[in-house]
């Protein structure tokens, strides 16, 4: 399926549905994504509450395999599988005639892109704050024996794939549907996606250090600073927002006012 745009002259004065906010911003899919995330993260937290102390203390116990390793075996293929399906869909349904994109459709797409980014930040909150300090709770209380622990099995192997789903998804959406982000690759967007994505391979460094050095569990240990530096890339998202503003302002005037929009650089 293709979403090729057709060059139709846009009437400046329009009193129809295309002047209503609902025409440009559609929350349905976004709301679905957020509800799924709330349900999933809520379920993970309850699962930890119920099964962590009971079956999560010893990685060699058969119960650990049943309750905690089964979780990993489900979440990694499901979440990455969904990611590849979604990214593949976005690529295959890309706009193949973007030079003919109308301002109204472009503005609509900027709102969809915005919602991709909001969903991404929602996932970031859960990994950066909620479950990350939960990891501190667990490992300052219970000594780790493998890279698979009740906190890691949620934080590393569920939260990280979830935000990668949204970060890469938003990136593919932007480069396949927005002319400004297709003509040139946004440096800020690459940083905002790549930094957090690289947290996944940085787990190798983290677990390697924990396996060989007796650091105890000092949370400010330099072993953890790889996550810190990669997390700084969040500061690039304001750059993406500024790039969007630069294009959305003329689009707003083109769609709602009298000022024609210049083509995107």
């Amino acid at each position, binding site marked *: 399926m293709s979403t090729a745009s057709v060059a139709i002259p846009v009437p400046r004065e329009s009193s129809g549905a295309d002047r209503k906010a609902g025409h440009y911003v559609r929350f349905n899919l976004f709301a679905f994504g957020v509800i799924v995330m709330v349900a999933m993260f809520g379920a993970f937290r309850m699962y930890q509450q119920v099964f962590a102390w009971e079956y999560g203390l010893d990685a060699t116990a058969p119960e650990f395999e049943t309750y905690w390793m089964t979780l990993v075996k489900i979440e990694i293929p499901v979440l990455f599988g969904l990611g590849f399906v979604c990214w593949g869909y976005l690529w295959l349904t890309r706009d193949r005639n973007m030079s003919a994109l109308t301002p109204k459709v472009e503005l609509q797409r900027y709102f969809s892109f915005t919602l991709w980014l909001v969903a991404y930040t929602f996932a*970031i*909150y859960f990994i950066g704050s909620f479950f990350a300090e939960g990891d501190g709770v*667990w490992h300052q209380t219970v000594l780790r024996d493998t890279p698979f622990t009740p906190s890691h099995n949620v934080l590393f192997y569920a939260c990280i794939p979830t935000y990668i789903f949204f970060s890469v998804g938003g990136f593919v959406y932007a480069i396949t549907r927005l002319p400004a982000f297709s*003509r040139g690759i*946004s440096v800020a967007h690459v940083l905002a996606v790549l930094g957090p994505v690289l947290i996944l391979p940085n787990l190798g460094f983290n677990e390697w250090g924990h396996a060989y050095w007796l650091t105890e569990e000092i949370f400010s240990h330099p072993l953890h600073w790889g996550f810190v530096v990669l997390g700084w890339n969040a500061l*690039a998202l304001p750059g993406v927002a500024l790039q969007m503003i630069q294009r959305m302002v003329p689009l707003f005037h083109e769609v709602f*006012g009298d000022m024609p929009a210049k083509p995107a650089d």
Partner: protein
Amino acid sequence: MSPNSREILAVSELPPEGAKLSRIWDWCVVAAVALLFMGAIHLHVMLTVGDWDMFIDWKDRQFWVLVTPVSMLMIPAALQAVFWHYFRLPIGMTLGAVLLLIATWITRYVGWHLWGYFPFTMGVPATMIAGALACDAILLIVRSSLLTSTFGGFVFALLFYPSNWASLAPYFIPIEHQGMVASVADMIGYVFPRSGTPEYIRMIERGTLRTYEGTTVWISSFFAGVICIFMHMLWWRIGLAFSTQRFVDSSKRFKKFVGLA
């Protein structure tokens, strides 16, 4: 429609429908900024300040007062740069401080208290809201990043200890424990076991620090202030560098894929 709303519409040069849509985008940005920086600042502080912020008995006069403001200033200073440079909003530091405190308290309750069964008294987090407000106010007055770093960065660190004093004072009350002087915070640490964080790795005040008595904390605060001046300068520039609006040209082949060639 209020005169204020009419004025806003006139400035935006948009009809009410357009202004409404633009406001929806603003709210999306507010949500994204709040969620993003709750996660990013909390992760940064959690992994650099760590135990000093997590545990009441780690809040010493030597390192807690030094490490915490220096680390807590970094990302908020970058936020301050972005909000001021592009939007002339002197809110970045305060926003960062408030978001961090909200994020921290959520996990102190849902994580430490409900999951780890830690008492609230063990995990009282530090706040930097007072220092952040002062730093934003200084920016508003002086309108210069250099002067804000010089005075705002220093004041931020200097206000850290007094602004936390009210919530922490009860834990610093001295008590006698097995013939030695300890604090209430020490006692909480002694009696609540953390098997992953043994008592011996906690920083204990020693050496001539004791002889400085009440001035110790101010010496640490002044030292933190000196570091915060330069840290603010550095992170102001990091904030602007990260928010680059640069595009790198796509390849001709890619443009062909999307019908732009």
